[in-house]
């Protein structure tokens, strides 16, 4: 019979594992946090439920009918294409950035794991590699922690207005994000083919090409396509800081209370985002 703790055993003498209380504790903590947040952000739930539906309805009716004048439609089309282009170029750039950095930011490629078990690096070599690793990881963290908007502002400052700073901002920020995701892929590759290759006497670089990359590339592509879905939304709004695309036009429409134009632009965003979502899902299913 298992030892009995007076506090946690029930009348049958069966002890309850402590992890049983964890979900309840967690739920309580979350509830407290949510209540605290509601107080802090001055969210008046009563007012929200009372006036909310009416406000939503009145605003929605103001949006109709959409502005379908040919001039504005042409403008919207240009903006849409620009946004699409920004997202594609930004995605490509981010893939390049991530690909370049991630190999230095993976512990199992730099200084530990299967590739390094037999040949021990000297302390100097190891120290050097670890520092490179830390630098690379740090770089990726910085790139992805700073929101695209902030990057966009920096680049607008550096190279001027237009879609180009948008591309750079997306490329840099998502380079960090993809770098982290790629890194996780690399760290989770199946060990066994790597070990097998190692026994044939292949060099570390060859093992990378023959063993690690074939496993990793489909995941890289999959994550990149998934990020494209995120990018298209980001590209749409970078325009707010002057980086072109639909964002710029939306800002104008909202500021000048041109709700009819806003509706047209919203439809445009909805179409382009849904399009990219479907394309991305389709391409990923081919992988």
């Amino acid at each position, binding site marked *: *019979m*298992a030892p009995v703790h007076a506090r946690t055993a*029930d009348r*049958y003498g*069966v*002890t*309850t*594992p402590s992890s*049983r209380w964890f979900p309840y504790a967690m739920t309580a903590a979350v509830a407290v946090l949510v209540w605290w947040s509601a107080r802090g952000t001055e969210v008046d739930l009563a007012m929200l439920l009372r006036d909310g539906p009416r406000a939503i309805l009145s605003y929605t009716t103001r949006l109709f009918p959409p502005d379908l004048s040919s001039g504005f439609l042409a403008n919207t089309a240009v903006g849409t294409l620009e946004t699409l282009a920004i997202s594609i170029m930004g995605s490509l750039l981010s893939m390049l950035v991530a690909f370049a950095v991630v190999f230095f930011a993976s512990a199992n490629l730099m200084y530990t794991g299967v590739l390094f078990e037999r040949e021990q690096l000297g302390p100097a070599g190891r120290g050097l590699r670890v520092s490179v690793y830390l630098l690379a990881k740090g770089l990726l963290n910085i790139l992805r922690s700073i929101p695209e908007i902030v990057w966009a502002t920096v680049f607008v400052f550096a190279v001027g207005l237009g879609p180009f700073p948008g591309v750079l901002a997306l490329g840099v920020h998502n380079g960090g994000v993809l770098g982290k995701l790629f890194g996780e892929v690399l760290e989770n590759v199946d060990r066994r083919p790597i070990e097998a290759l190692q026994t044939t006497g292949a060099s570390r670089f060859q093992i990378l090409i023959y063993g690690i990359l074939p496993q990793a590339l489909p995941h890289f592509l999959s994550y990149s396509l998934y990020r494209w879905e995120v990018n298209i939304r980001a590209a749409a709004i970078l325009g707010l800081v002057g980086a072109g695309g639909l964002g710029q036009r939306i800002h104008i429409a909202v500021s000048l209370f041109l709700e009819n134009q806003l509706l047209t632009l919203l439809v445009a965003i909805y179409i382009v985002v849904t399009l990219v979502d479907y394309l991305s899902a389709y391409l990923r299913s081919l992988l």
Partner: protein
Amino acid sequence: MYRLENIRKVFNGDLVAVDHVSLKITPGEQVAIIGPSGAGKTTLFRLLNLTLRPDGGVLWLGNSDVGELRGRALRATRRRIGTIYQQHNLVPRLPVVHNVLAGRLGAWSGWRAVWSLFRPQDLHSAYAALSQVGIPEKLYARTDELSGGQQQRVAIARVLVQNPEVILADEPVASVDPNLAHSIVKLLVEISQTSGMTLVMNLHSVELALTYFPRVIGFREGRIQFDRPPAELNDDLLSRLYAGMSRSEAQEAGIDADYEAPFTSSCGPLLPGK
């Protein structure tokens, strides 16, 4: 208990899994069904536990025709049948106590089911059932931490809590160590004998069937080949049942597949073989 009259089940329009099967099982009996893989044993099993609807024939459980049941009536009838699958009976992340008490779900209202997740209802019956299968100390353990044999015991405990009239088991020990297999089959047969529940078990291993069951049915290609007590079975019948199996399948089932019996087209009171 069960009466099948000309039961038929067809998949995709042309794959006949169960072909004009007629069968009677009396309350409290223990019946083993053996046969090669793909013979339709599992389809028959799922017809008996009301997961599938027959495409032809009549299926009686007790005094009711259960072939076309729906909704509440279906749910109520399912309560009378306890089911044990080969694997994956249980919800992995739930603690054992909830998986066992799931046997009561047919009797509980929705709200009671929710409340039980926080404060297990009928705790004593869960504990008693787990004691009967030999692992009472696992009451609050997480189900996916148990071994395969232990998980099957939990599934049996759930059936005990459900307290049905019939226990149906589909190859319950096929994924379990051979030593454990004997104890689990023996446990189920004993439960059936002491409680009066009817027991119908699909078995992969002929040896287990012959050792523990007073009635053995051979099933092949959707039809019953024979239906006899073990004493009346011989190698000839068994080999013909498994004829055409691969060597390894035969070894697993525990029969000598090299024996080639002379084929006869009539077999007396049984349904024709081929």
